[in-house]
């Protein structure tokens, strides 16, 4: 990394001051306000708001959604990254573009698509209602929409790691007789684990915080299909500010934990990468010679 020459004097102070003011105004202040508002009527009111049954149901649904969509994304993401980095096939670039689709489409539209597919009058509606399966305005819809919007997170991360590391170790494992499964569990997975961890953190954060797509498919049924972001909006709409901000504070705490984890994983990844590149610090000839010369 090259350090550009630091601006000097008044200009530097101006730039640093402006940046700090911006960060304070747009990032720190709103976050602080969340907690201030949550505790506006004291700790008692705060915990009372959290103890609310509907709030708990929203927290549980959010956790359930993340617990299902994140593992799905891990499995899909690792498979897709494997496919895209190890094989050349027709339509590869098309698949790469499609994977990014959830990033480029507005979440509301993503939600609408699922309503059109599974909702009343949708393509699969008659088949689903015949089987007595309800997706839209029910928990499965929330999970499907969340999985959709978090789709590219793990795949993108792992793909990057796999492409950076190449396939040499995999080829070596093959020549040593490893089966496909041994190759994956013993060589590839350890190589990409920090990429996977990073992807999990990102998709978990998005899964818990998703509003748009979930809002369209959930139907906002209290105690049933409300996730935390949806519940916050409802409470806020009802002028229950303490309740809204209490739930918001939980989500904010989650964000902070995510950031810390993310930092940690980045640090671990950087350390692993450093160890890789800067390794042969001492390609010491003397050491070599001593070893070689010591041969009988």
């Amino acid at each position, binding site marked *: 990394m090259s350090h550009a020459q630091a601006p000097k004097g008044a200009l530097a102070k101006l730039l640093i001051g402006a940046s700090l003011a911006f960060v304070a105004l747009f990032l720190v202040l709103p976050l602080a306000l969340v907690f201030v508002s949550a505790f506006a009527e004291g700790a008692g009111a705060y915990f009372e708001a959290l103890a609310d049954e509907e709030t708990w149901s929203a927290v549980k649904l959010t956790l359930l959604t993340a617990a299902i969509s994140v593992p799905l994304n891990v499995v899909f993401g690792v498979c897709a990254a494997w496919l895209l980095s190890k094989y050349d096939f027709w339509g590869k670039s098309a698949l790469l573009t499609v994977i990014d689709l959830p990033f480029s489409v507005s979440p509301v539209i993503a939600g609408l698509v699922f309503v059109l597919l599974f909702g009343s009058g949708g393509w699969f509606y008659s088949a689903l209602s015949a089987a007595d399966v309800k997706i839209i305005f029910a928990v499965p819809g929330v999970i499907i929409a969340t999985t959709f919007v978090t789709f590219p997170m793990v795949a993108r991360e792992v793909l990057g790691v796999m492409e950076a590391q190449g396939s040499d170790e995999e080829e070596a*494992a093959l020549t*040593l*007789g490893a*089966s496909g499964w041994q190759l994956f569990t013993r060589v590839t997975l350890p190589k990409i684990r920090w990429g996977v961890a990073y992807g999990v953190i990102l998709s978990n954060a998005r899964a818990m915080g998703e509003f748009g797509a979930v809002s369209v498919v959930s139907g906002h049924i209290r105690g049933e299909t409300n996730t935390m972001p949806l519940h916050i909006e409802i409470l806020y709409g009802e002028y229950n500010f303490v309740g809204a901000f209490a739930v918001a504070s939980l989500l904010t705490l989650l964000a902070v934990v995510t950031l810390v984890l993310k930092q940690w994983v980045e640090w671990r990844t950087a350390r692993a990468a450093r160890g890789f590149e800067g390794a042969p610090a001492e*390609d010491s000839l003397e050491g070599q010679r001593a070893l070689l010369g010591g041969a009988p």
Partner: protein
Amino acid sequence: MSVRVESITKRFGADAGRVTGVSGVSFEAPSHAITSLVGPSGSGKSTLLRLVAGLEQPDQGRVLVEGEDLTRVPVQARRLGFVFQNYALFRHMSVFDNIAFGLSVRGASRKEQAARVSELLELVQLADYAKRLPDQLSGGQRQRVALARALAPRPRVLLLDEPFGALDTQVRVELREWLHRLHEQTQVTTLLVTHDQEEALELSQHVVLLREGQVEQAGTPTELYESPRSAFVASFLGGAQILKGQVSEGQLQLPGQELSADVDHADGAVEAFVRPHDVRLVRADEPGGAPARVERLIRVGGFVKLTVRLDSGEVLQVQMSRTAQLDLGVEAGDPVRVDLGGIRVIARRGYSI
């Protein structure tokens, strides 16, 4: 375990970029010997090795080991050891686990693994390094671990892809000697890919010289060195210089020069080659040879490299020991006479009298 490659062809699509294919390549690597696949970059030698290993699938042709057709056998089942130029060690495993990998995936017991690994650590002289991670080793040490890992499952053939290419010269020369001793101990049939002609000549009993995806000439190092069948072989091995000439009645005549040499070749236009250390210089006031002038003289340790321009216009590179140069007493700019007694005619492939 002899390896036979029969008219193998592999083409890569236009988007494959720098990977070179091979077309219609056949050669045989004898048992217990080191066979070098040598050629400039882009000659397809690494592709050929990967085809033998099964890391690439040929479009046509066959790969046989000890008579058994392996062409359709998957990599894992071929039991060939492969050593990559960039080591390709498992970065997250210790040296021990790296070497044991090929044994453990085949279900060897912990005890068997430990015994074999310590045997190999001894062989590659890294007994004290078993617990290290690859990142904690030097380049030469990593390459020896890679070699031990490839040897651990007792492969039928050892395939080495530019094994010393990423190392600096001194380590490379030492590892080369070490590999020579190792091969004498293990006697594993070995295919060695290298672009370094010296490595090929020094290490192998058999050389396959490739050019643009085809075999240019194959044989013992001496055969290729002494009797190259093309100007390419002559200049690739030993840096021979090519001169065009005419043979008549057993005499090689080089145009515009009074020098001639006795050769065993039929009459006609020929290409002749002479290596820098086979050109003899004599003082300008002595008889024999063609008149010339030393244009440039560079001292490289105990050697001197001279660029000599013949009066007829041809430029020759000459190499001699520093002592010989001092005895001769020539410096840059001095007139000399050139004796091309060491010149030979290239016997063309398919040449008939």
